[in-house]
């Protein structure tokens, strides 16, 4: 018998019992919906991570001084454990020094664009008359400031000359300008000398530029007095802090795709190991956005597995529900089955009819699940500030899987219907 006829018969009998069909489909809807939702979130976040990585040239490698894991030691009870027993912060002697960086630049000159260096000096307040703005003083080298991708609204960047001289010039946020000068004409701030009052110290700066502060802080700050960054030269900060070296640096890889960033990262690791192998407490570790993405993908994989297990249970329960409702439906329609057999339906055509009905039921549930999953997942992705990218392959998989559930759980009831004795079925009350 024709497939189309079977499908339209199946739809007719599902529509005749809408409420019941809906309740039956619930398990399928929940199962498919949750899988699609988590896949949509995962896909969206991965996609946006990838696109931001390529747009930011963020194949940067982060290098930081961290405490070594201690050797495995046996404690009193004889249990072995491995870990940092006493948390220690690296001291100045452990920091990455300028001579290492000079070597680094020389050794990797062909593959790295620069080394991003920065240091936070202090947080404080600039007061002008009755107005004030909170700022955090960050000194950064040229590479660092370039990496910050600041959008200047007025003035100029901190130039090479200022960097070399370690001049006390500053880039402040538009937000800080509004706070200090009560104006949106940012040019007004250029050339002004300001004093940052921090705990026990004063720092003087000349404003040379105003940058646009992103809106990211607004979520948390609201109308409160926000602290924005005051960028100055690295030399200026170093001149005040008298700290030699850096606990963290960032190495910018040249954008050429031919340069293997994983290889570069491990070579940089080896490079620093040369300096730190004598240091018993601290070592240098490297990481990159790529490696973070790897970790994120792993985490997401774990979450997906967890949700898939739950979804699997929901689908199993849903499938059993479908089987149950098909058995009920077949028992209700015993006379119909008998009639069909009297009219010449073969066992296989009866079987096919009910299998298709179960499959259509599951397919509708699957489609509703996909719709709910995609919209739920997209919403979650939006909340995570990622562009929604539903995973097409998982949608196709889900639809196919829901039909497979229909086939699997519909077979037994359909076979039962097919094997009914026509006489008994016809006289069934």
């Amino acid at each position: 018998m024709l497939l189309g006829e079977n499908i339209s018969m199946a739809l007719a009998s599902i529509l005749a019992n809408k409420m019941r069909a809906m309740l039956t489909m619930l398990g399928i809807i929940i199962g498919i919906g949750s899988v699609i939702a988590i896949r949509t979130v995962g896909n969206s976040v991965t996609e946006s991570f990838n696109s931001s990585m390529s747009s930011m040239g963020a194949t940067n490698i982060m290098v930081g001084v961290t405490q070594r894991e201690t050797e495995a030691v046996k404690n009193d009870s004889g249990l072995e454990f491995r870990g940092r027993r006493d948390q220690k912060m690296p001291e100045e002697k452990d920091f990455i020094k300028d001579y290492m960086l000079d070597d680094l630049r020389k050794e990797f000159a062909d593959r790295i664009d620069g080394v991003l260096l920065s240091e936070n000096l202090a947080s404080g307040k600039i007061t002008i008359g009755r107005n004030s703005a909170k700022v955090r003083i960050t000194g950064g080298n040229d590479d660092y400031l370039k990496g910050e991708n600041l959008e200047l609204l007025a003035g100029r960047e901190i130039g090479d000359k200022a960097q070399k001289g370690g001049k006390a010039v500053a880039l402040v946020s538009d937000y800080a300008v509004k706070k200090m000068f009560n104006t949106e004409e940012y040019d007004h701030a250029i050339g002004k000398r300001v004093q940052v009052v921090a705990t026990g110290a004063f720092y003087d700066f000349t404003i040379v530029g105003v940058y646009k502060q992103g809106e990211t802080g607004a979520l948390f700050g609201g109308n409160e007095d926000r602290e924005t960054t005051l960028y100055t030269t690295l030399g200026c900060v170093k001149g005040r802090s008298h700290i030699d070296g850096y606990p963290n640096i960032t190495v910018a890889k040249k954008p050429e795709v031919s340069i293997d960033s994983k290889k570069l990262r491990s070579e940089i690791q080896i490079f620093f190991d040369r300096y730190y192998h004598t240091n018993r407490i601290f070592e240098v570790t490297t990481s990159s956005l790529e490696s973070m993405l790897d970790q994120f993908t792993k985490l997401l994989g774990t979450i997906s597995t967890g949700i898939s297990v739950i979804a699997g249970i929901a689908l199993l329960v849903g499938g059993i529900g479908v089987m149950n409702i098909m058995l009920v439906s077949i028992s209700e329609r015993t006379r119909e089955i008998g009639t069909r057999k009297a009219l010449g339906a073969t066992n296989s055509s009866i079987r096919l009819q009910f299998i298709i009905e179960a499959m259509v039921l599951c397919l509708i549930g699957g489609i509703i699940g996909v719709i709910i999953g995609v919209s739920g997942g997209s919403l979650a992705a939006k909340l995570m500030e990622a562009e929604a990218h539903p995973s097409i392959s998982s949608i196709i998989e889900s639809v196919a899987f829901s039909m497979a559930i229909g086939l699997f759980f519909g077979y037994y009831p359909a076979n039962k219907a097919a094997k009914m004795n026509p006489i008994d079925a016809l006289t069934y009350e």
Partner: protein
Amino acid sequence: MDKRLIIDMNNIVKRYFIGKPNELEVLHGVNLKVYEGEFVAVVGPSGSGKSTLMNMIGALDLPTMGQYKLDGFDMFHAREDDLSAIRNKKIGFVFQTYNLIARMTALKNVELPMLYAGMGKRERNTRAKELLTMMGMGDRMQHTPDELSGGQKQRVAIARAMANDPAIILADEPTGALDSSTGRLIMDIFHKLNHEQGKTIVLITHSPELAEETQRVLTLHDGLIVSERKGTGKVAAG
């Protein structure tokens, strides 16, 4: 008679619960011959084996012993799918309770046997419309059974029985659920099909008056045909 033999039953025995303590023999050796174009009635009280005989004639069940040829086809060797095909092509059932499929329109109900016969969509649609029009149901084709009266339902059922132009129409108490005037109407349809189209009809009924209208009346009692006589073949006056 050199007419085609449609039903050829010889010494049909039907037993249920074979080998069990409650083994039951319902038919004890029935002989029945129905020729093409005949209108035959089978009467008998309930429990006489009427239904069992009808199931046997209708290929819904197979005899325990005996020979049965339906339109030349030996049922003895029939397998399940063969029986389906025989029911589909050779037999048109008309039931007391109509047995129309509730969710389907009259038209779709009539199309059903043709669907199982593998007929094309357009062809079966045309034929179903023709049959329903012939039954005077041309303006009710898109109605579902619950929108139809009993007489209308039975007319749809007769149209459905005629769908594959069967060798025999098997009517089991077709007027049993209808009032007498509607029942009369249905009987007239059977007479018309018999006279005008030469349809072979077997009517199973417990009503002696209806049986009298047919050409031959067989009385079944305790699983045996105990009498056979000619009917008037005419509709009683009034």
